[in-house]
């Protein structure tokens, strides 16, 4: 998408004549390739040769989504259905040309797209399940394509179409290969996405892809079972990784896994209480080290933990059987910890903000108005917030109003 973070190297230098000619040549080459693919597809040449041509083009321009779609059609209407000798020219269904976009599109599974495409022609086999088994060309093609994609993804890790195409390939594998073979492919994806997240531990495409891969590997159709324990461990590893505690992507994932993790462990009330204590301990000790009390990722995770106590309806809870008194006790304890934390971090706005939020939350939980001390404390903390963070003065104005009500 456009140019993100591309510094301008030299002042709008005029191209030399040689550079101009070279660029002209590159444009010609690129457009010739485009036209060649178009012409071959118009002739319904669904061959490996054309697949190669699309590879060449996509290496030059991985954002060219229509060519990724051409590639999908080459595979499902031609190549997947062929015997291993795939040099012959097959006539595909007349509907499946470049412009065939008539299929029911709200359906997720690409197998449904295949079966509705009207296999009424000379295509030799039902293209949906041509080579169900271990040695078919379908597996080779999928494997080959996954390998082709990897270096492009490393180079363009934020290109939506790449992640999307990759997922489509694997879903094709689910449809046309035996489940143990498909599972093997998905397993390798977990390693791949691990590598991608090592390169950029905040890449949200990567985290999203990981979620999908895991949910496939857990699914009964691939003979899977829950991976919540290993995924939880993964977030622990990431939190202690390069971006460390400022890796909010990892904290976020952790927040989503915890309720399920405890359910699947059949955790007792006592275990859950201990779990919550440990998570508080983890985040608070993090805040005491390095510069973390000033980093917002840690505070948002802290907010998550507090939310399970204060807004316990509607959010995955850690301690569902806590009584209102238990909850109030925990919040009170946190208020003490926060006040202690101010010592030496008097310039940390996050602490003041948390103190006000959770003092007010405690009053709501106990269905009472703030007492005089609490009101005075809040006023003092609010004054600090205004001083430390004048950019958000409009927010502090609204907060002040809400304190008055």
């Amino acid at each position, binding site marked *: 998408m456009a140019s993100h973070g591309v510094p301008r190297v030299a002042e709008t230098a005029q191209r030399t004549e040689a550079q101009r000619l070279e660029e*002209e040549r590159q444009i010609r080459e690129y457009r010739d390739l485009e036209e060649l693919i178009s012409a071959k597809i118009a002739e319904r040449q669904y061959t490996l040769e054309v697949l190669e041509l699309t590879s060449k083009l996509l290496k030059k321009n991985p954002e060219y989504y*229509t060519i990724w779609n051409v590639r999908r059609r080459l595979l499902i209407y031609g190549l997947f259905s062929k015997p291993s000798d795939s040099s012959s020219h097959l006539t595909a269904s007349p509907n499946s040309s470049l412009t065939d976009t008539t299929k029911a599109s709200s359906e997720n599974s690409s197998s449904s797209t295949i079966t509705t495409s009207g296999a009424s022609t000379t295509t030799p086999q039902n293209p949906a399940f041509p080579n169900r088994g271990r040695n078919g060309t379908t597996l080779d093609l999928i494997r080959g394509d996954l390998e082709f994609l990897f270096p492009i993804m490393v180079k363009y890790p934020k290109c939506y179409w790449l992640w999307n195409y990759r997922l489509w390939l694997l879903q094709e594998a689910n449809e046309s290969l035996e489940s143990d073979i498909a599972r093997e492919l998905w397993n390798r994806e977990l390693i791949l996405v691990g590598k991608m997240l090592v390169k950029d531990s905040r890449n949200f495409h990567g985290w999203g892809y990981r979620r999908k891969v895991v949910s496939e590997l857990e699914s009964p159709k691939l003979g899977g079972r829950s991976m919540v324990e290993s995924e939880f461990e993964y977030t622990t590893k990431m939190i202690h990784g390069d971006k460390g505690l400022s890796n909010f992507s990892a904290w976020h994932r952790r927040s989503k896994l915890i309720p399920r993790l405890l359910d699947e462990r059949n955790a007792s009330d006592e275990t859950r209480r201990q779990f919550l204590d440990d998570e508080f301990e983890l985040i608070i000790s993090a805040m005491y080290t390095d510069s973390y009390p000033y980093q917002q990722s840690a505070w948002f995770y802290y907010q998550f933990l507090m939310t399970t106590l204060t807004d316990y309806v509607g959010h995955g809870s850690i301690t569902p059987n806590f009584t209102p008194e238990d909850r109030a006790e925990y919040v009170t304890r946190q208020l003490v910890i926060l006040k202690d934390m101010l010592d030496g971090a008097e310039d940390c706005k996050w602490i003041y903000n948390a103190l006000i939020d959770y003092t007010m939350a405690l009053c709501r939980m106990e269905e009472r108005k703030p007492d005089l001390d609490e009101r005075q404390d809040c006023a003092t903390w609010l004054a600090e917030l205004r001083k430390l963070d004048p*950019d958000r003065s409009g927010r502090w104005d609204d907060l002040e109003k809400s304190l008055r009500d």
Partner: protein
Amino acid sequence: MSLVSGPGRAGGNALPDELQLVIEPHVKYIQSLDTRKDELEYWLTEHLRLNGLYWGLNALHLLNRPDALPRKETIDFVLSCQADNGGFGAAPGHDAHLLYTASAVQILAMVDGIGELEKRGKEGGAMAVGKYIADLQNRETGTFAGDEWGEEDTRFICCAFVGLSLLKLLNLVDLDKAVDYIVSCANFDGGYGVAPGAESHSGQIFACCAALTIARRLDKVDKDKLGMWLSERQVEGGGLNGRPEKLEDVCYSWWVSSSLSMIGRLHWIDGGKLSRFILNCQDPENGGLADRPGDMVDVFHTNFGLAGLALLEFDGLEEVDAAYCMPKKVVERVLGPEYYNYS
């Protein structure tokens, strides 16, 4: 419309103390974009052409220069991108996708050309476009796929609602289900991600808030929590980032502040500081805006930077609608004055 970046570079040190919005250079920059066919990048960005036309045209409208691109050629180009299934691709011959279909409808709305769909569009006119969009709804979950290949993302709900509402065909889809789906994407921090379980991201938050605005269901948003998270996107220098601990970028001047505006909390950030950051991303001589001062300008950041300024009611810019990212005037002309009188 070219998506080629440059030639300009955003200022940073050469700007005078008193920052100004340059208008004429931006207009010229956008007008020049389609003349750069001798650059390889022009061809490499063809997959964004229709979006690019929307970005450029919207920027021109906000600059009060709606006629700076020729109307007839604009409509001709949009219609040339329509596929047989009613949807629009990025350029002629490219496959239809919701991302471009929404841009096509927005462009037609801006040039008062929606009626051209009946006259010169594919058979079925506006209804063909509406049906294309409606067929992409997953009727079980309520969400939308981007195209026939099934990728789902909350951005596509926004594209669908923008397109359908401007065509007055929202009745073709199950709004309640789509709204429920958006609610299922909400996180503890009040934000939204690409799908249930995904991390909050300002771009997705914009998409979800815009969809909820159009569906009149902003009551579903936890406005204080979301407002707090969004306001923390403003960094020291005044710019906004998209997620915690990321770099600021001019495009988030739009995604974040429009979301804050939709939930009534735009005053939770420092608008003056943000304006200065955006102005610093201009190339005052050659026109255009970049993601950050010192980087290459492009039409994407030009649009979203100017839209951010317009939202902050910067002097000399048209009022912008936070959900549609189009001039309010246009939205009002298409949807009628009652759209803004809704309570």
